[in-house]
């Protein structure tokens, strides 16, 4: 069973009807190449990397990639299979396990080491280990870029 039945149909419709109107607004800063909407600062990092992620910091990296399956609130999702919840998840206690999964992938999850550098992986690992009801960085220590680099080898 699909556990949630939220629908964003109304939101889609509103966003769509707004497009033509926005496009007719004069270019606000005169330099933006954006034609159909004015992205806010954080949005400009979307797709800014060529083949990798431009976002930095755990929260931004999580929001740009991980949240797609594990959801913005870390609760995961269920269909024919599940995307595991990260909420109060003891498997995240030691940094090595999430580092390994991010680099190697497993099941539905593809390896992401190719689009993130060591620091991005470390940051997002520490973010999920200190969010969603988790608080592991103090007791277990934080992941470092060096840890990620060693796991890659």
């Amino acid at each position, binding site marked *: 069973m699909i556990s*949630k*039945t939220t629908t964003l149909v109304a939101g889609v419709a509103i966003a*769509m009807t707004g497009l033509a109107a926005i496009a007719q607004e004069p270019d606000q800063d005169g330099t933006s190449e954006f034609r*159909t909407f004015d992205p806010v600062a954080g949005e400009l990092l979307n797709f800014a990397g060529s083949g*990798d992620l431009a976002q930095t910091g755990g929260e931004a990296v999580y929001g740009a990639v991980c949240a*797609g399956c594990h959801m913005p609130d870390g609760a995961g*999702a269920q269909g024919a299979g599940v995307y595991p919840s990260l909420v109060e998840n003891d498997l995240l206690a030691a940094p090595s396990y999430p580092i390994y999964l991010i680099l190697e992938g497993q099941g539905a999850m*593809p390896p992401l080491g190719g689009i993130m550098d060591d620091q991005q992986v470390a940051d997002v690992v520490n973010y999920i280990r200190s969010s969603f009801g988790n608080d592991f960085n103090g007791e277990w220590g934080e992941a470092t870029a060096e840890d990620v680099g060693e796991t890659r080898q």
Partner: protein
Amino acid sequence: MTMTRRELLGAVGMTAGSAAMYYAMASLGHAQDSTYQGRISLTGEPTNGRRVLVLGAGLAGMTAALELRDAGYDVQVLEYREKAGGRCWTLRSGDTYTDIDGVTQNVDFEDGNYINPGPWRIPYNHHGVLDYCKRLGVRLEPFIQKNHNAYLHRSDAFGGEPQRFRHVATDYRGHVAELLAKATNQGMLDAEVTEADRETLINSLRTFGHLNDDNAYVESDRTSQYRGYAREAGGGRDGAPVPSEPMDFETLLQSDLWRWLSEAETTSHQNAIFQPVGGMDMIAQAFAREVDDLITYNARVISMIQNGDTVTVQYEDRENGGDPVEMTADWCVCTIPFSILGQMDHNLPSAKAQVVDTMYYEGAIKFGLEFNRRFWEEDDSIYGGITYTDLPISLISYPSTDYFSDGKGVLLGGYVWGANAYQFNAMQPDEAVRWAVEYGSRIHPQYPEEFSSGVCVSWHKVPWTLGCYGIWQDKERDYAGVVEMGPDDRIVLAGEHLSYLPAWMEGAILSSLDAIAQLHVRATDSGAGE
């Protein structure tokens, strides 16, 4: 322009290498000709048990169900969704699609318009798919893969102005031919080409690259016949055509637009290439007409246990709830993607279970964007085919059907892999579509004015696959052991992920045919001694 032989060969090699690398990605691994041997023949009575459970009603599952039922088996199929077809799927007007996070998109296209979120074309050498289309009465029409009048585009080339494919293709070929002719005449290729062949080579380059008598690629009536005229030929006054000026080689080389020139030339993309009339799921519907009575829909399989002589499967009824339902059969064809199977309770042999657990699923996203009119036809004379771009949408594909029609038209507004696909996946549909419209508008400025509605399908958010297609950690090492039905197995595995045509429908069908051939040997006397 002068160039040493080393530089020349280096440039050509670099081009070929980059292109080859790109195809390796774009064609999803080894794009081989299909090994389809014609309609499968399963002769003999299944005396060692005739009850077969098929898990999954995609193309692999329905192929197995259709053929095994015809061979005398008692077949039942369990399907998670409310309909058959799996990734052979079409979204059209009135359809709804709900992501794994519960977000529903209503497809608001005009009647007749559609988008194929999964497979969208059938190469001429995918003999299995084509044979089933013929057998099951699926009408096919040409899919336009290569259109010389579509665009190639990079944001940092030609000031972001899209270039016609025919300009880039003709000029690149012409300039390369000129260089090679020059190198030959200057004696730089003497070690590679015999004296007798040099003249033949030069002649061939003149023909191949449309060079003039001085072996130069220049503005001329001849080159304009390939790249197009500055003013096309007409009648009456001003009827004489005006030749167009080729781009210079340095600009063209640096533009990087040449990377897409061979895109339509792998055997998986060459002409002829087809699509079903009305949407890819016409194939799914045709199969379902044959085997619908065998399928239990809304059945979420939760366990699959083989024990000696039988297989026991449990599923949850997604519609009516209640306790899990148990079914027992003599044999089982499991087509459930490993992204799902790995989370189920099963007792596959450990070597297989290991691969089930470690196969990962690639992401991809497709956009279907509907516009108020077919401006790409009316304004740009683009009838089908594909525009390639370095923008995050990767490409725009124009509909290969209903040309010149009034009313709205639907583009494939993006087909994205890799880092960009992951970022699109993390967006809600309305946000992702907004970006697809933005990027497309940089190639087609008509977008904002003409946009009507859009849908997107990100495969990691598809509840019944959790990804687009399966990728092996070590296919060379593990493949044989997983696709083989072991002597103690009552379960055989099938699907695109168990083929060397991953993500292609042909891979799903060929895998299924091989699986049921193995099952049949075991279930008939021919396998009794094994």
